């Protein structure tokens, strides 16, 4: 009898649950696909590119993309120096990917450590660390970035260092706030009562509870970092002149806006799609992992 009941009950319930699970992940499918494509393009830019991104051929300058009357030789057209735009976009994806891979985890580690120590210790050390965050917030990052970039010259390494300095405070503020509330929880008190030290508690009790927040912020920071790199390159203090970067392509396209719409539209769209994807994934993760954070940004 009981078995009968389960037999008749189980399929619809399980079915509904399966459908609900599927629907939960459906929202992720589009951004995840774009993200995979972006990573793939960035990682294999050299293999995928039809041309050398820096090969100049003035005879072929300002050719439109294939869907606007161009030829398949240059599917996305050429720029004012006759360089192949598809190849430049792919190599630009590589620059963005490198910057994201270097900056986002690095800033997360720095910011989380600072926020964790500030939240756990409080007092003088905590206050000093938070004032450090304040300085970071008060000093317009872009100005400092431009100052450093102009002194040390444009290079990918400098862009990464500048963006690390620029973005760590996003983590430290939130992590500190969370650490302060976790600090007062019973399991921390219990751990302390049995003689656990600060480092142990931070690593074993606070950090695992904070990880959700950190991962969400990391995902949301992807777009910020990519747009910041583009902004620096646009201002001429990002990646050096020879490198194909989306920001640089937009700067170079400025004077050709009227003659060659594709020069400015294509890198702009690439930037927007990738930033949009990062934001969507961040939002999805936030809703899935921690709805309380909905008001962060």
């Amino acid at each position, binding site marked *: 009898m009981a078995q009968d009941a389960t037999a008749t009950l189980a399929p619809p319930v399980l079915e509904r649950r399966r459908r609900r699970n599927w629907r939960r992940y459906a929202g992720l499918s589009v951004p995840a696909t774009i993200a995979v494509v972006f990573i793939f393009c960035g990682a294999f830019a050299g293999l995928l590119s039809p041309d050398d991104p820096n090969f100049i051929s003035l005879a072929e300058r300002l050719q439109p993309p294939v869907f606007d009357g161009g030829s398949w030789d240059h599917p996305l057209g050429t720029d004012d120096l006759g360089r192949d735009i598809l190849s430049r976009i792919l190599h630009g994806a590589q620059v963005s990917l490198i910057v994201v891979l270097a900056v986002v985890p690095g800033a997360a580690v720095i910011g989380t450590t600072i926020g964790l120590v500030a939240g756990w210790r409080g007092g003088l050390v905590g206050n000093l660390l938070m*004032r450090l965050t*304040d*300085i970071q*917030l*008060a*000093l*317009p*990052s*872009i*100005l*400092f970035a*431009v*100052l*450093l970039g*102009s*002194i*040390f010259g444009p290079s990918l390494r400098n862009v990464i260092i500048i963006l690390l300095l620029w973005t760590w405070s996003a983590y430290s503020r939130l992590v500190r706030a969370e650490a302060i509330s976790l600090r007062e929880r019973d399991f921390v008190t219990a751990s302390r009562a049995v003689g656990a030290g600060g480092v142990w508690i931070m690593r074993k009790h606070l950090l695992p509870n904070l990880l959700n927040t950190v991962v969400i912020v990391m995902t949301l920071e992807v*777009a910020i970092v990519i*747009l910041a790199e*583009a*902004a620096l390159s*646009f*201002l001429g203090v990002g990646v050096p002149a020879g490198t194909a970067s989306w*920001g640089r392509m*937009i700067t170079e396209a*400025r004077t050709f*806006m*009227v003659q060659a719409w594709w020069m*400015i539209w294509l890198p*702009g769209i690439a*930037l*927007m*799609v990738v*930033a*949009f994807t990062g*934001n*969507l994934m961040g939002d999805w993760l936030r809703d899935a992992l921690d709805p309380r954070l*909905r*008001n962060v*940004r």
Partner: protein
Amino acid sequence: MQFWNFLALRLLQAFAVVFIVVTLVFLVSRLVGNPEQFLAGPDATNEDIEGIKERFGLNDSILVQYGDFLGDLVQGDLGYSWVGGGVSTIDSIGDRAWNTFKLGAAALVFAIATAVPLGVAAALRRGGATDWLARALAVVGQAVPGFWLGLMMIFFFAVDLGWFPTGGAVGWRALVLPAISLGMLEMAAIMRLTRSGMIEVMDTDFIRTARAKGLPERTVVLRHGLRHAMLPVVTVLGLSLGRLIAGSVIIEVVFAWPGVGRLIIDSIVRSDYPMVQAAIIVLAASISLANALVDVSYRFIDPRIRAGSI
């Protein structure tokens, strides 16, 4: 009394932050770079270079230079430009600061004036057309690079249609495009907050009570709902001040807007260190002061926030 203590403490902290920024800026711009070479020009003799080092005090030890720098600073003297006939930096900045302020204020007004009504409308009719529009705008606004949006708007509205000038700061028309480009990101953030805040608040008991009292829906939404939903928005406004100033740098370059941001970029290109120093210090001081005042104002807006927990 507790309030004044908090205010004083917060201002003191802001002062300390500015002091550290000043020191950092001084160190970065003095320890690296080779200003005397630049000032003397490419074919200067050694004597020329020595003369310039003497004149600008570049021969003194770094500590003496730092002391002089701080001494001048407290007297409101931020040094003289190294280029363009040696004008006082603070005067040049003063002229430009008003423009940057105008741009930032216009961007904020644009952001609030579009985001709040749209966010409220979206929240009241969830899933409707307005809601879709608002959410699409928010997602796009957060993903589009401001400088690219600016360039596109120049292309369409200035070059093609000729409605607005392509750059400069003459007349109110010149303000429109830069303000929208700069305010887009803030608009997206404010709208998301307004929308989610309104959705949350319209579900609460006090809204039901207000409705039960027979208040007109307008009053329920605006007086009871919106006022509550605005709290997180005010918090974000504090943070957006810094973002607006940082963003204005690049927007000023795109639109040739004569503000402090462009002054800094131009001065960096010309290695005009005193100008760069002075401008960064002025901007950093304004942001710190603004942040401090925002922190203090929370206490007025939301009595639940105690000074210690900020």
